[in-house]
C-alpha cells in the first residue's frame, strides 16, 4: 500500500520504521532536507522536501495514487490542512492527523467530515490514558485492554518470595483460583509462548490474559495485594502531564506537579486549580525530597529529557516509591533500563505508531479486521484482537485440534459479551472475537494467517 508520511520527526520516524516492516511503500515529506537525508540513507523510502500542506508538494508526492496520508508534523494546523488538501486531491484517501492541542478537541469531534480526517492521533493523550490505567492497578507493569475493556493482558514480574516463583503453568489455577492464561513469558530478553510444563522463575516477566472483572481477585490470590495510588508525584509539566493530572484529579488522586519553568508552572496552576504545582528543578534531590517523594505512592517522570526521566525514576525507586513510571521517547536503549529500577517505560510515539499500524492493517482487510493491536514485551510480541467471520476455517473445532502456527496462541474468546479464557476443548464461532498472541516475525494481517497451511 502506498502511504505518505508528512513530517519526519520522532513520530514520523517511528511510523516509517514500523510501516516499512509491514511491507508498505512510503513517501516522506519534510521541510528540513537534513532529516530527509538521514531517512533516505537509513530506510528504503522516497523523500520529498517541501511544505506538506501545499497542494504542489502533495501532488508531487503522488497523493493521487496513495491510499493513506499521515500528517505528523510539529504543527497541528499544518497537519489538519495537509489532510484537508490531501482529501480534496484524492477523495478516496484515508487521512490520519496528529493533533495535540486540546483547544481543537471540539472541532475534531464535530467537523471531522469537513476536515477530511479519518482518524486523529494524540500521542500525549494516549500516553496519559495508558499511565492512568497503570496507576489504577499499580501492581501490573503494563495493561492492555481488549474486547471493549472486558479482557486485559497484564504484565507481572515473578519475585523470589512471591507465590508464582517455581510454579508450573499447568498448576497455576490452584494458586490463582481464577481462570487466567499466561500467554507470553519474557526471560533474559527472550520472549516465548509457554506451554503447560513451563516453570516460572524469579525475574520472569509474564503476560497474563484475564477478564477485567477478575483482576483484583487475581492479585489478591497471588498474594500481591491491592495497593492504591492516593498521592502521585508528577515531574515535568508537559502537555502529557496536564492530561494525566486532569484524569487523576477527577479520580480523586492527590497530584503534585514539579515544573522547572516558572511561566509553565503558573499556567498549570491556572488550568489545574486542584493540583499542587511546585516550581523547581525536578532532577534535584533536594527538591524531590522536600516535596515528599518518600510519601508518594507513585512517581511519574514526564520531563522532555529521556535521560533526566530515567535518572529521576531510578532515584525514586531507590527511595522506595512503589510505583514508578518513566516516559522515554527513544526506545533503542529500553531493554537496558528494564532492571535498573525505572519501572514501566511509556513511549508516546510508540503508542501512537501502534494505533496507526492497527488502522493500516484494518484498512487492508475490511473483513476479519484487526479490532485491537498491542505490542508487549518490548515490542517482541504482538497481541491482536480479530472478529471471526464466515471465511475463517476451523470454526467449531476444539482448539486442541486446530493447527495453529508455532509461536502463536489463542488466548481469549469473547462470545456475545461473554469472555472465555480458552482451554483445549474451547472453540470459536462466527461472530466471536478472539485475541491472538504472536511472537512471529511476519505480521499477522488477518485471522487466517495464524493457521498452518
Amino acid at each position: 500500500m502506498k502511504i505518505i508520511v508528512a513530517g519526519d520527526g520522532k513520530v514520523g520516524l517511528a511510523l516509517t520504521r514500523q510501516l516499512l516492516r509491514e511491507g508498505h511503500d512510503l513517501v516522506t515529506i519534510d521541510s528540513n532536507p537534513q532529516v530527509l537525508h538521514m531517512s533516505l540513507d537509513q530506510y528504503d523510502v522516497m523523500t520529498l522536501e517541501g511544505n506538506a500542506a501545499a497542494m504542489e508538494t502533495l501532488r508531487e508526492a503522488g497523493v493521487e495514487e496513495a491510499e493513506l496520508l499521515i500528517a505528523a508534523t510539529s504543527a497541528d494546523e499544518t497537519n489538519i490542512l495537509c489532510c484537508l488538501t490531501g482529501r480534496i486531491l484524492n477523495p478516496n484517501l484515508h487521512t490520519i492527523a496528529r493533533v495535540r492541542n486540546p483547544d481543537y478537541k471540539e472541532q475534531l469531534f464535530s467537523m471531522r467530515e469537513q476536515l477530511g480526517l479519518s482518524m486523529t492521533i494524540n500521542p500525549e493523550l494516549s500516553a496519559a490514558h495508558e499511565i492512568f490505567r497503570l496507576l489504577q492497578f499499580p501492581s501490573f507493569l503494563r495493561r492492555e485492554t481488549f474486547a471493549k475493556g472486558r479482557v486485559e493482558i497484564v504484565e507481572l514480574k515473578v519475585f523470589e518470595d512471591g507465590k508464582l516463583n517455581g510454579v508450573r503453568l499447568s498448576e497455576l489455577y490452584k494458586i490463582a483460583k481464577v481462570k487466567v492464561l499466561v500467554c507470553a513469558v519474557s526471560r533474559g530478553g527472550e520472549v516465548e509462548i509457554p506451554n503447560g510444563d513451563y516453570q516460572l522463575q524469579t525475574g520472569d516477566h509474564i503476560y497474563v490474559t484475564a477478564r477485567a472483572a477478575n483482576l483484583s481477585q487475581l492479585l489478591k490470590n497471588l498474594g500481591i495485594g491491592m495497593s492504591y495510588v492516593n498521592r502521585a508525584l508528577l515531574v515535568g509539566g508537559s502537555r502529557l502531564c496536564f492530561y494525566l493530572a486532569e484524569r487523576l484529579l477527577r479520580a480523586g488522586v492527590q497530584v503534585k506537579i514539579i515544573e522547572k519553568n516558572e511561566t509553565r508552572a503558573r499556567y498549570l496552576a491556572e488550568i489545574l486549580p486542584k493540583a499542587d504545582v511546585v516550581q523547581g528543578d525536578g532532577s534535584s534531590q533536594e527538591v524531590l525530597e522536600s516535596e515528599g517523594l518518600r510519601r508518594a505512592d507513585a512517581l511519574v517522570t514526564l520531563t522532555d529529557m529521556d535521560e533526566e526521566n530515567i535518572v529521576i525514576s531510578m532515584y525514586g525507586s531507590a527511595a522506595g516509591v512503589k510505583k514508578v513510571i518513566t516516559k522515554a521517547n527513544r526506545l533503542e536503549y529500553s531493554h537496558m533500563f528494564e532492571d535498573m529500577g525505572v519501572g514501566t517505560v511509556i513511549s508516546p510515539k510508540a503508542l501512537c505508531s501502534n494505533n496507526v499500524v492497527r488502522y493500516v492493517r484494518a484498512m487492508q482487510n475490511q473483513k476479519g479486521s484487526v479490532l485491537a493491536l498491542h505490542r508487549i514485551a518490548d515490542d517482541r510480541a504482538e497481541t491482536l484482537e480479530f472478529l471471526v467471520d464466515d471465511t475463517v476455517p476451523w470454526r467449531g473445532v476444539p482448539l486442541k485440534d486446530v493447527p495453529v502456527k508455532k509461536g502463536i496462541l489463542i488466548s481469549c474468546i469473547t462470545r456475545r459479551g461473554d469472555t472465555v479464557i480458552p482451554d483445549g476443548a474451547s472453540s470459536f464461532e462466527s461472530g466471536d472475537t478472539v485475541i491472538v498472541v504472536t511472537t512471529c516475525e511476519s505480521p499477522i494481517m488477518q485471522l487466517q494467517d495464524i493457521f498452518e497451511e
Partner: protein
Amino acid sequence: MNIRLVGRMVSSILFVTEVFMIPSLILCCIDGDHDVAMAFLASMAVISLIAGVLFWFGRKREAHFSARDGFVTVALAWVCISLLGGLPFYFSSEIPSYVDAVFEIVSGFTTTGASVLPDVESLSRGVLYWRSFSHWLGGMGILVFTLAVVPANKNSGGTLYLMRAESPGPSVGKLTPRIRQTAMILYGLYILLTVLCVAFLLAGGMPLFDSVCTAFGTAGTGGFGIKNDSMGSYSPYLQNVCTVFMLLFGINFNVYYLLLIRKFAAAFKDEEVRLYLFFFAAATGLITWNIRPLMQSWGESLHHAAFQVSSIMTTTGFSTTNFDLWPSFSKAILLVLMVLGACAGSTGGGIKTVRMLLLLKELRYNVQRTLRPRTVRAIHVNGHVVDNEVIKGVNSYMAAYWILMFGSILLISLDEFPLESNLSAVFACFNNIGPGLGVVGPMSNYDCYSDFSKIVLTVDMLLGRLEIFPLLALFSRDTWSKKL
C-alpha cells in the same frame, strides 16, 4: 566497516555473473566448441569456489550497512568480476595472455569496447556472446540488477548507497519508494528498448546472433563488434538503426520513466536531454560540413557524421568508416565529445551532460560574481534548486577526473607512441568509448601497448565506469583503518 556483509554481497554478485555465463555455455555446446565449453565450465567452477568462500565468510555478518560499505561493495564487486569474468577467454586460449583477457572483459563490463584482438571474427560464438553480453550487464549495472532480483529484506536500509555508487551521475535518486521497484523499472525499460533494437535490426535482415550481439553493444553503449570492421559492412539501414538506438540509450532513463507515467511535459522539458540533443545536432552539422569533400554526397556525409557523433558521444564506439582519416577539425570535435559523454542515469560514460550543464551554469554565476560581488543566485536545473553539495561534488569530480587522466597519459607515454594516440587512448578508455585516434583508431586495436599500459588503461576504464570515487575509496586508508 562491515566486511562480512560486503563479502556476502560480493558473493551474490559473483553468483549472478556466473548464471549469465550459462547462455554462452549453451552456445558453445550447440556449436560443438567443446574446448570453449570446458573453459566456461572451468571459469564457473573457479567463480563458484571464490563466491562460496565469500559466502561462508559472510555468515556471521552484522546487519548495519553504511555509506562506506556501499562504496566498497561496488568497487570490490567490479574488481572481482573484472578479474574473474575474463577467465573464459584465458582458459579457452582465445586470448592467451591473462592481462589481455582482463583488459577485454573490463572493456566489456565498463561498456568501453576497446579490444586487444586483431581478428574478432575468428572467435567462437560463445566467447563473442559473452563479450557482447558483458556490455549489456555492465551498462545498467550488475548491482542494480542484483537489487532488482534479490528479494529485499524488510527494512533494506542502506541499499541506496549501492545504487548511488554504481549508477552514473552527480545525484542519483529513486523513482519509486522502494529501491527494488526502482531497479526493476530501470531494467524493465532497458530490456524493452533492447528488444526493440533487436527487432529493428532483424527487420533489416541482420542474422539473429548478430542482431542480439549488436543490440547488446548498442544498449550498453559498449561497442564490441562481432566483425573486424565494426559496423562498416552492414547496410545503411542497419547503421541508421544503430545511430538512433545509441542516441536513445544515451538519454537519462528517468526521462523514459516520466514518459511511462505520462508526465510528458516534464520529460520533454528536461534540460539535460535538450542540451544533449543540441550537442548532437551541432556536432553532426559541423562534421557533415567538414567531411563533405571526402564523401560522395551530402547525404552520405550526414549519414556517417550522425553515426559517428552518436557513437562517440554516447561512448559506444562503433564505427562505419575509419574516422582517423577525417580532417583535424572533425577529429577534434570527436575528442571533445569523448569527454562530454552521454546523460547521467543512462548507460553511457564520459563526464555526463548534466555535469557540463552544472559547470556552465556555475561558470556563468561565478563570472557574474566577479563583476557584481554582491550577487546571490541559486543554480536551478529543471526548475529545482541544485544543492550546494552536488555542485561541490561535481567540482571535486572534475578535479579528480583531470588529474587521473593526465596521470594515465603520463604513464602510458612510456610506450613511445605519438601524443595524439596516447591522449585519445586514455580519453577513450577513461570515458568508456573504445576506439581512439592514431594507433588505437577504429581500424586498429590496443594490442600494440605494453602490458603495463594495458593495466593502466584497464584501471582507467573501471575508474570511468564507476565515476572514480568508489574505486578511490577502495584504496583509501580510511576505508580499511580500524580507527573509529
